[in-house]
C-alpha cells in the first residue's frame, strides 16, 4: 500500500518536473536509470553522468522501476543529482518481494518436508552510488577512439538481513535470519567499485548512432547484494563484467541489449547466472523517459529460470 503511494507520488513528481528546465545536453545522453540507481542502461552504469546537465549545470532525476519475475518482484525508486557533468550522486531503495511459494519451498527443503508452508517475505535494500567522470567526451570526441570513462563506488545496505521468516501461524523457527543469511551470506552490506567506458558512435550503423558500454565491477555481492555479501568460505572481491550495445533508431527511441556476469559465490540454491536483457527506451523529450525490457536473470533460489518484464520511468529536472 505504502509503495503504491510512493509510486503515485513519484509519477506526480514526473509530471510536475516535466515543466522545468532539465539541462542542455542532448536528448538520451543521460541514459536511463539502472535498477541500482546509477545512470546508464538497466543493469549496468554508463560513464555518462545522470541527467542532462552541462559543465555549468546541476540537474536531478527521479525514477520508479518495476521488475516482475514470477515469484520474485523487484520494485525500486530513487533519485540522483548530476553535478557539472562531472559527478553523479544517487540514492535508491530496492524492495524484493518473495512469494510464499518460494519461502515454503525453502523451508520444506531445509526441514526435509517437516515444514512446508511459510509466509511471503520481502527484502529491502538501500543503495548509494557516487560516480565521477574521469576522461573523454563519449558523444563529441568522434575523431578519436577514446571513450568517456567514469569510476564509481556503490554502497549497499540490507534492511532485512535479520528479518525472521514467518510461518503461517506467526512463529519463526529460524529467528533473526533473513533469506540472505539462510542461504549463506556473510554480510548485510558491501561496497562495489566500478569503471565504465562508454562511447556513442554518431551516424555509424547505416547512419544510426551506436552506443557501446563496458563496465568492470569489483564486488562481493551475491545476486546484486539482494542475497547479501560474501560467504563464510569466500569473502574476497571478484571482478565482474557488464556491457551494453544500443542503437538510437530515432531521435527519441533507443533499442539495445545488455549483459552482466555474476560471481556465484553462494552456489546451491542461490546459484547465479549471467544476466541478459533486451530493452527499448523512449525519450519523448528531455524531461522524461520510459524503458521496457525483457530480462533473463537465470537462476534465483527455487526458480531456475527467472525471466520477466522490467519497466523504468525516469523524470529529469
Amino acid at each position, binding site marked *: 500500500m505504502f509503495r503504491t503511494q510512493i509510486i503515485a507520488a513519484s509519477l506526480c513528481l514526473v509530471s510536475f518536473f516535466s515543466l522545468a528546465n532539465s539541462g542542455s545536453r542532448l536528448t538520451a545522453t543521460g541514459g536511463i536509470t539502472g535498477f541500482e540507481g546509477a545512470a546508464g542502461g538497466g543493469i549496468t552504469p554508463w560513464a555518462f553522468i545522470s541527467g542532462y546537465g*552541462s559543465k555549468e549545470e546541476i540537474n536531478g532525476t527521479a525514477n520508479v522501476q518495476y521488475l516482475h519475475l514470477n515469484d520474485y518482484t523487484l520494485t525500486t525508486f530513487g533519485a540522483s543529482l548530476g553535478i557539472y557533468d562531472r559527478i553523479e550522486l544517487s540514492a535508491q531503495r530496492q524492495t524484493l518481494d518473495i512469494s510464499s511459494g518460494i519461502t515454503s519451498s525453502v523451508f520444506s527443503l531445509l526441514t526435509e518436508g517437516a515444514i512446508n508452508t511459510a509466509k511471503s517475505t520481502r527484502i529491502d535494500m538501500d543503495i548509494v552510488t557516487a560516480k565521477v567522470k574521469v576522461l573523454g567526451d563519449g558523444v563529441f570526441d*568522434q575523431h578519436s577512439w577514446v571513450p568517456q570513462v567514469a569510476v564509481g563506488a556503490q554502497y549497499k545496505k540490507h534492511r532485512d538481513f535479520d528479518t525472521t521468516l514467518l510461518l503461517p501461524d506467526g512463529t519463526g523457527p529460524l529467528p533473526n535470519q533473513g533469506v540472505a543469511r539462510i542461504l549463506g551470506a556473510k554480510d548485510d552490506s558491501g561496497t562495489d567499485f566500478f569503471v565504465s567506458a562508454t562511447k556513442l558512435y554518431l551516424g555509424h*550503423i547505416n*547512419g544510426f548512432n551506436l552506443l*557501446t558500454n563496458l563496465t568492470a565491477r569489483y564486488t562481493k555481492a551475491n545476486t546484486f547484494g539482494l542475497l547479501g555479501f560474501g560467504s563464510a568460505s569466500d569473502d574476497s572481491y571478484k571482478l565482474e563484467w557488464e556491457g551494453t550495445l544500443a542503437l538510437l533508431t530515432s531521435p527519441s527511441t533507443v533499442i539495445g541489449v545488455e549483459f552482466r556476469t555474476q560471481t556465484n559465490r553462494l552456489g546451491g540454491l542461490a546459484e547465479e547466472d549471467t544476466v541478459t536483457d*533486451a530493452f527499448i527506451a523512449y525519450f519523448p523529450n528531455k524531461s522524461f523517459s520510459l524503458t521496457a525490457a525483457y530480462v533473463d536473470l*537465470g537462476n534465483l533460489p527455487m526458480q*531456475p529460470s527467472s525471466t520477466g518484464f522490467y519497466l523504468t520511468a525516469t523524470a529529469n529536472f
Partner: protein
Amino acid sequence: MITYLKQTIAKTPVFALFTLVFWCMCGCTSTLTSTQPATQAANSLYDEIGGSKTLNTVFGVAINRIYNDPIIGHYFNGVPKSHLRKQLVSQTCELIGGPCVYEGKAMLDTHKDLNIKEREFYILVEYVQGAMRDVGLTYQQENQILQKLAPIKSETIYL
C-alpha cells in the same frame, strides 16, 4: 547440464542480437573507411542530401534561430549572417565529401576569447539539428553530419 543447456538456449535471442550488432558495427566501419578517401564519390553524403543548396537552406534556418536566441544570440552581434552562412556551408560541404575547400578562419582562432560555455554549445547544436530535421534531412543524414562537426566542440568552448 540440462539446466545449463536450457538457459543457454533461452539466452540465444539476446546473444544473437549482440552478435548481430557487433557484426554490423564491424561491417559498417570497413565500408566507411573504404569510401572515405574518395571525397567526391558519386554517392557522397554531400550529394545524397542535395549538395550546397540544401546546406545553404539548413544553415539559413539555423542561423536565423541562433541569432534570435536569448542566450547565445549576443555572440553574433556584428557578425554578418551571410558571411557566417557561407563559411558554415563551405566547411560542412568539405567535411561531408563535397567539392568545397573551407577558406575561413581556423576554428580555434575564430572562437578564441569568446569564452563560450558548454551549455551554449549544446544550444547551438540543437538549432543545427532542428534545422536539418525541418529542412527534411533524414535522421541518419543528420547523425552523419553531426559526426563530422562534433570534434569541433573542443575548438569552440572554454577558450
